[in-house]
């Protein structure tokens, strides 16, 4: 097991290097740079200033020199300076990561909290009213675009009913660190979180339901029943253990989506996070930030996949890798 994790971690290094190279080159291929668009509407800017800023940030160097400089610092943990935000990228990201992770974790937890029970119910009592209702919800959630649904939630629960605030991550009037502060944070989290979670349940419910239906008919389940194992135990001990496998494997991939997956939610609910920063950095040609975020989500993908493999081998002895 340790050997396996070690091997996977070692493979990660060239993977990330390659990723960074591709991203860097692609980013540089975009027409214009951080200075081009930002300066054009500004009557106070002069061409000389633009040139001196390009010089200052090394934007005039050939791409391999820029890449060399960047990677040299990156391995030391310095991701460079953001051109538009005028602060170190690491500093900038730190502020946003917390929000994105909080939001994504909330979404993830709620998703599982909803999806697993629903999947089990639908799988166990197939073709009942409950099952049909769940399946309908499932198709509905699959078909609804997130931004439409999020707006609907916002409209209903914030503007009509007034239960939750319409945007932001916390009320600025409340003193940081107090109990009320955390309550306010949670209140701001519910609406974007629920909007995301209610639509994210599709995969899990569908997988779980199908797998349970499938497993129900397997010989070992029949055997268990024939032995006189009570129905409840048949499900918890025999069927679920098998059916949860693909869900557990999925967890790793879900982590992947945590980083940049909430762009729409962040935009609609004015929730400052990585997703928005990512879009902003691309339109503004803020290369250092773009590269840094791609690197982070790239790392998350690689780690997520590894996590999936580890979970799988931990719970399923059959596919343990030696």
């Amino acid at each position, binding site marked *: 097991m340790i050997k396996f994790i070690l091997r996977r971690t070692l493979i990660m290094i060239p993977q990330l290097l390659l990723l960074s190279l591709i991203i860097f080159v692609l980013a540089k291929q975009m027409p*214009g740079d951080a200075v081009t668009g930002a300066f054009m509407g500004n009557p106070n800017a002069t061409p000389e200033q633009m040139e001196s800023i390009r010089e200052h940030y090394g934007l005039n160097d050939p791409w391999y020199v820029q890449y060399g400089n960047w990677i040299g610092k990156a391995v030391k943990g310095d991701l460079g300076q953001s051109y538009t935000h005028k602060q170190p990228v690491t500093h900038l990201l730190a502020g946003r990561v917390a929000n994105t992770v909080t939001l994504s974790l909330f979404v993830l937890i709620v998703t599982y909290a909803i999806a697993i029970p629903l999947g089990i119910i639908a799988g166990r009592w197939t073709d009942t009213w409950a099952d049909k209702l769940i399946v309908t919800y499932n198709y509905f959630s699959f078909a609804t675009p997130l931004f439409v649904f999020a707006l609907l939630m916002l409209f209903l629960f914030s503007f009509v009913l007034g239960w939750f605030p319409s945007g932001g991550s916390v009320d600025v009037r409340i003193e940081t660190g107090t109990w009320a502060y955390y309550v306010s944070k949670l209140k701001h989290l519910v609406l974007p979180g629920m909007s995301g979670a209610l639509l994210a349940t599709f995969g899990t419910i569908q997988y779980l339901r199908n797998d349970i239906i499938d497993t129900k008919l397997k010989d070992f389940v029949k055997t268990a029943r024939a032995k006189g194992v009570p129905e409840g135990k048949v499900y918890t001990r025999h069927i679920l253990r098998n059916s949860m496998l693909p869900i557990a494997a999925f967890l790793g991939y879900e982590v992947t989506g945590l980083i940049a997956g909430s762009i729409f939610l962040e935009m609609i609910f*004015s929730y400052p996070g990585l997703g928005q920063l990512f879009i902003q950095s691309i339109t503004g040609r803020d290369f250092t930030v773009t590269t840094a975020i791609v690197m982070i989500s790239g790392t998350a993908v690689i780690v997520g996949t590894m996590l999936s493999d580890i979970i799988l081998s931990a719970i399923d002895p059959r596919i343990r890798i030696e």
Partner: protein
Amino acid sequence: MKKRSFLLLASLMLVLSVFLAACSGNDNASGDGKDKGKDKDTDNGTTEKGDDDNKAELDFPLAVSNDKEAMEDGEMTVALVADEPFEGTLSTVFYSVQYDAEIMEYFDEALLDVDGDYLITNEGAATYELSEDNKTLKLKIKDNVNWSDGEPVKTSDLLYSYQLLGHPDYVGDRYGFMIENIEGMPAYHEGKTKEISGIKIIDEKNMEFKFTEATPSILSGFWSNATPRHHVGDVMTGEVTMKDLESSDKIRVNPIGFGPYKVDKIVPGESILFSRNDDYWRGKPALKSIVQKVVSSATIVESMKNGDVDLATIPADQYLTVKDVDTLELLAKVDLSYTYIGFKQGKWDAKKKENITDPNAKMASKELRQAMWYAMDNATIGEKLYHGLRFPGTTLIIPVFESFHNKEIEGRPYDPEKAKELLEEAGFKDTDGDGIREDQNGEKLVINFASMSGGETAEPIAKAYMQNWADVGLKVELVDGRLHDINAFYDMVENDDPKIDIYQGAWGTGSDPDPSGTYGRTDSFNMTRWTSEKNDELLKQGTSEKAFDLEYRKKVYDEWQEYMFEEVPAIPTVYRYKLKGVNKRVVNYDIDPASETRLYEVGVSE
């Protein structure tokens, strides 16, 4: 009620789909004044304008009508309408995005106030006096002006701004002509000296500036924003480095100023809490606190309707949804910007640092350019796509500069017949009978048009213009067959990509009417590359010492506008209005720069 709610929801969704479409780029106009490309479609306008006369008739008021007393200790919520977090570089020296300026407005102000023409006055926290030869400016800071931490605002704080702006390590866009025009500034900027010889500190409250060149731009562009040296740390003594300063918490987390309010708390990227600055030099501010927060363009109208937000800039495309909300009042004024069509007529010579006009350029015919203007139906575009909130431009100096905008010129209203006539006369005839005009030599004429993507109106506008031109027999095609995002667009236009013959751009004018930065011979931002000796002459006269005489300056600019109207290196297509939505409970709010009402008087009535 139900039905109405649904309608609201539907409009919300519509708006959202628009902003999703727009999220890939900025508005086709890349911003105004100091705010650059960051503003989306936040420009706006008045409802109606006279039919054929191209002058704007403001139907919106400039000030709120609520004349009740402001309540004691009220709180007001101000929205920053944005689909992204604000950056939060809260320093006049370092900031780069308009949103940050909108925040700073509440806790910081320039030492010198300005009037309706954006010229400096003696009504602010400091007074000035200009010497006979207009080369020396004496500045005196009033006695009761203190930073919000209690320290007095000193002359050394204003000097500090200049020391930062001119610093060899300064990375930003504010080291412009007005800073460089201080005597000794270039030497300091190159790192040759540690002192700026042209700035003399007499005592804590009195100082003197010496200029290299006497120009009326001093009156509109003089920098008077101080930087609290004691608070942010001194770069000159090595207490802090330039790089650390621009990312410092003293600027981003707990900035101070001497404005009517002080920053209590900032939630990075989303909101700011201000409280009253009891020590404000003009008097006691009316509100106890102000909450300023980012509200997405998709929800701003709803937020204003239900009273979550008292004050906001309303995006142009949502005008129809706010028009009839009875809790709101709409104010509007002409924005400091305009959209234009530029005709490429040459190249920038980077070695000589000047524009070289090519007399044989495809767009070199003056009549062709004039005809293209006549062929454009800007009134309809303003009417249909902006609900009448944008209106046809007439000259290259916008009407905001009341004293300098030439009202005699009425632009070239839509007149396709006249366009055809002009083209015929100039020899652009359809010689092979395919309905498309050939050039004077009988060669096929295809004009390549570059335009920016972003916003839901970019594509229809480009298509409408192309149709307009096709109607008079001119074949105009989009460069690469599509629109380009702002960076790609300016990359091509600035570097004189031979693919481009004409392009649609926008300029923020800043507060100085002097247009030489965008039409001068030695300025690379003159992207049409059109030059002429008469133009050089007029632009020079406009900023000469003689031009301190307003009458003279007006005469020069009148003549310049007439000349540009005749030559048409660029067509001013539309002027815009900026629309503010204000809750009816707000009192003493006025967006007229000429108004006597100041920000500290703004209050709420209930």
